[in-house]
């Protein structure tokens, strides 16, 4: 029997499964793949049968869980300590709008907290991801209706990226989307 997941690590949920299925369809054999904020390592461990996968997380508990799942994992903020270009970058970001007075001080909270508007981490990601994305690389980003789909698309637009909705699923009171984001030609 395997040990249960650490209580401060996000256990795979509907958003994880949707992004994982989409990534498995999107990923071509042998590609260089980076999963940002891997949490339990669920998605990265499923992708590594067909691609060269590296994963990151900032949480000390998450990196240990991902390591235990057999993932090549690095503890770092987003991809701060990563320098290579990747063909595919997969990210299920912290996206829940969170007010200051709702904030708890633990690592699970950190995995969910998207700041006041839910887009704080996504915005930082959108500004910096160009550094580690191959010229023809693709990003798969999980976005919730709670986070604001048009606003997220707008953030990437501003950084020279084009977004396309490739999956949608409704789960209770939220719609989950997967965006495929690529560089706009000429940028």
């Amino acid at each position, binding site marked *: 029997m395997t040990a249960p997941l650490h209580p401060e690590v996000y256990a795979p949920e509907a958003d994880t499964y949707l992004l994982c299925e989409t990534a498995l369809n999107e990923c071509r054999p042998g590609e260089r793949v980076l999963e940002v904020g891997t949490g339990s390592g669920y998605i990265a461990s499923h992708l590594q049968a067909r691609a060269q996968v*590296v994963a990151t997380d*900032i949480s000390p508990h998450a*990196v*240990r869980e991902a*390591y235990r799942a057999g993932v*090549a*994992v*690095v*503890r*770092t*903020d987003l991809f*701060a*300590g*990563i*320098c*290579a270009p990747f063909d595919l970058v997969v990210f299920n970001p912290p996206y829940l709008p969170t007010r200051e007075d709702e904030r708890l001080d633990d690592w699970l909270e950190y995995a969910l907290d998207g700041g006041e508007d839910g887009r704080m981490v996504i915005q930082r990601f959108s500004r910096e991801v160009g550094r580690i994305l191959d010229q023809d690389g693709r990003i798969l980003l999980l976005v919730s209706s709670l986070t604001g789909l048009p606003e997220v698309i707008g953030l990437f637009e501003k950084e020279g990226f084009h977004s396309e909705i490739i999956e949608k699923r409704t789960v209770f009171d939220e719609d989950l989307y997967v965006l495929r984001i690529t560089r706009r030609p000429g940028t």
Partner: protein
Amino acid sequence: MKRSLLPILCCPVCKGDLELRVARENEEEIVEGTLECRACNVSYPIEEGIPDLLPREPDKG
């Protein structure tokens, strides 16, 4: 971490190359060691097989 991971890692602050020092290694991977950024004079630890590239204080001396 496997040795093959080294070329894709960089200093999280200056993005410069890191120099690997191995303290303990098995057939598969580096279990304990450090990744040093000379430009920043910082050593990032590898513990229980996991490199920790969070920004930290410079080394003393």
